[in-house]
């Protein structure tokens, strides 16, 4: 009886989720499969030859330029993640622990304000701020602090990290905030009661209990930034390409879709492996949560 009841429930569930499932299949799975298929086909200069080959992958994995750009992408997104999470934690902590309960939703609302502007415009505005005749340079020149505009503040890795960290800050603040909110405040009093200072209580109680949020924030920032295309193009001035820019060049400019696809699949695999390591960490920390 119970079993057939469950089956009926399962049938109903499947029926209900069928439309979005089909949609996801068409929008997500089909393009993925197309890319995967392309990556095993031969490039015939102007057309794609329908013959199975592993050459694209061999070329991608052997190419020192690809390796360099992939490593740079990993490095930049790791740096962005580090900066974003490290800056997001104090903000989340402040909102969760210091802000009065009735003001918290206002603070969260304020944190999401950057989303009101398009991502592209935000990135472009950083260019305006950091540029040769940008806000910073004109201000500093106007104040007589510098004679010539600074050139090292735009078109380099630092400026990419700065821009991306700003763009992804809310994504990092929110999960950390949620995990901090879930901490029973009497646990912190218990830590103090058992002889620990505020700092040690933070280290032994607050931080371990906030780790699931920190790991979620890390994933949420890391995965999209590694594939970011706009920021390296605009803020990096096209001189510091990341993996997405390389894929774009192969796919469109050089019209080598099989090679571009192989690059994309490779990048996806690397991101997947890194994410799985994070998920494993996440589960380890989650296992001990209530």
């Amino acid at each position: 009886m119970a079993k057939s009841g469950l089956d009926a429930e399962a049938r109903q569930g499947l029926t209900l989720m069928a439309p979005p499932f089909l949609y996801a299949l068409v929008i997500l799975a089909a393009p993925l499969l197309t890319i995967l298929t392309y990556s095993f086909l031969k490039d015939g200069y102007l057309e794609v030859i329908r013959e199975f080959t592993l050459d694209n992958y061999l070329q991608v994995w052997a190419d020192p330029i690809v390796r360099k750009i992939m490593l740079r992408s990993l490095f930049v997104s790791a740096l962005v993640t580090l900066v974003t999470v490290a800056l997001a934690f104090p903000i989340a902590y402040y909102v969760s622990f210091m802000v009065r309960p009735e003001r918290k939703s206002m603070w969260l609302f304020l944190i999401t304000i950057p989303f009101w502007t398009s991502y592209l415009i935000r990135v472009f505005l950083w260019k305006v701020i950091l540029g040769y005749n940008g806000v910073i340079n004109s201000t500093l020149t106007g104040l007589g602090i510098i004679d010539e505009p600074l050139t090292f503040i735009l078109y380099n890795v630092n400026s990419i990290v700065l821009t991306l960290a700003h763009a992804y800050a809310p994504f990092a603040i929110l999960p950390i905030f949620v995990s901090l909110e879930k901490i029973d405040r009497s646990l912190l009093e218990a830590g103090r009661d058992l002889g620990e200072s505020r700092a040690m209580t933070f280290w032994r109680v607050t931080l371990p209990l906030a780790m699931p949020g920190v790991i979620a924030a890390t994933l949420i920032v890391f995965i999209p930034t590694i594939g970011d295309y706009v920021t390296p193009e605009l803020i990096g001035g096209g001189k510091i390409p990341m993996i997405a820019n390389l894929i774009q060049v192969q796919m469109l400019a050089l019209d080598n879709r099989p090679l571009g696809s192989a690059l994309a699949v490779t990048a996806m695999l690397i991101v997947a492996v890194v994410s799985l390591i994070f998920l494993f960490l996440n589960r380890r920390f989650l296992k001990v949560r209530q």
Partner: protein
Amino acid sequence: MTETRHDVLDAARPMIECQDVQKYYGDYHALRGINLTIREGEFFSLLGPSGCGKTTLLRTIAGFEDISSGAVLIDGNRMEEVPANKRPTNMVFQSYAIFPHLTVAQNVAFGLRRDPRGKDEKARLVDEALAMVGLKGYGARAAHALSGGQRQRVALARALILKPKVLLLDEPLSALDRKMREQMQVELIKLQRQVGITFVLVTHDQEEALVMSDRIAVMFEGEIAQLDGPEALYARPVNRRVADFIGVMNFLPARILSENGEGAKVEIAGLGEVDLPARQISRANADDEVVIVGFRPETMTLIGPGQPHTQPRETGATIDEVVYYGDMTYYDLRLDGSARLDGGARTVRISMRNLFGRDVQDVGTRTRLAWSPGSLVLFR
């Protein structure tokens, strides 16, 4: 001759002293001049309804709340400048506050980090503490997999392992079911006798306070209304409010006919004229203008027709309601002439043990109530 617990406590030095402790939250006056002394080795309870300031008082002793004025001393030392983590107190929190990311053993060992003893020695201490609270062999378990009663025990072990001078318990039993609560009450008493540490318990459950405490401070609205041993509190409450809060008490309107230094002659609705000695008269009734007489349900006896009794007085009554509890029966009685003083008819509640051979009487039965003036308390 052996010393009784009372003798030992009477000779004990003060462990906690509160001197005119005031606490304001903004305009709200949470503690209004608390003066009390808790003695070393005592099981002391702060009892009162929610919002009476009992938890605030406990938290000022623990160091989680600053006091607005006055002084708190623990073992003779002023505590104003001493933060919570440096005070010789440990607390069992209402929610138990068991660290969910640690095992049972790690929870119990939490406060031992700065202890200079070696790892093996600490592990032995943890095992001992767990054995003391009946959780032997639970050390490796994840804390979040424990039941409410087990969490409670972990919280106790975690606090007691540090050998504090004072253990503070903030409504530790309120989250447990009735059976478990009664069992834990007995265990806590035994544990307190065994370790000899001063226990300060906050509770809103008067029965719990009576069962466990050497002395009880009853608090209302930030003030201590009465501080006494359980028997004194139950038998001689200082005012109607305390009497009402501790157990069940019947109240009948009364009128003072004459009064001198040794006592008073009063007329009580339904009970007639009675001489009451001074010790049965409570004058702390400032806020309550009406003169009233109270008595506990178990101090009077229902007697069948023609049945003899040894009580000096008896009154006719009619049974209005019967509530049967198995071991006890509660009778609500309408006393003859109870409306005489102010015209309001009222019932009183009498409890009778269901002893062998004693029948439960039916609603509507005419009966007699046998009583003694010694069980009455006059509030004026």
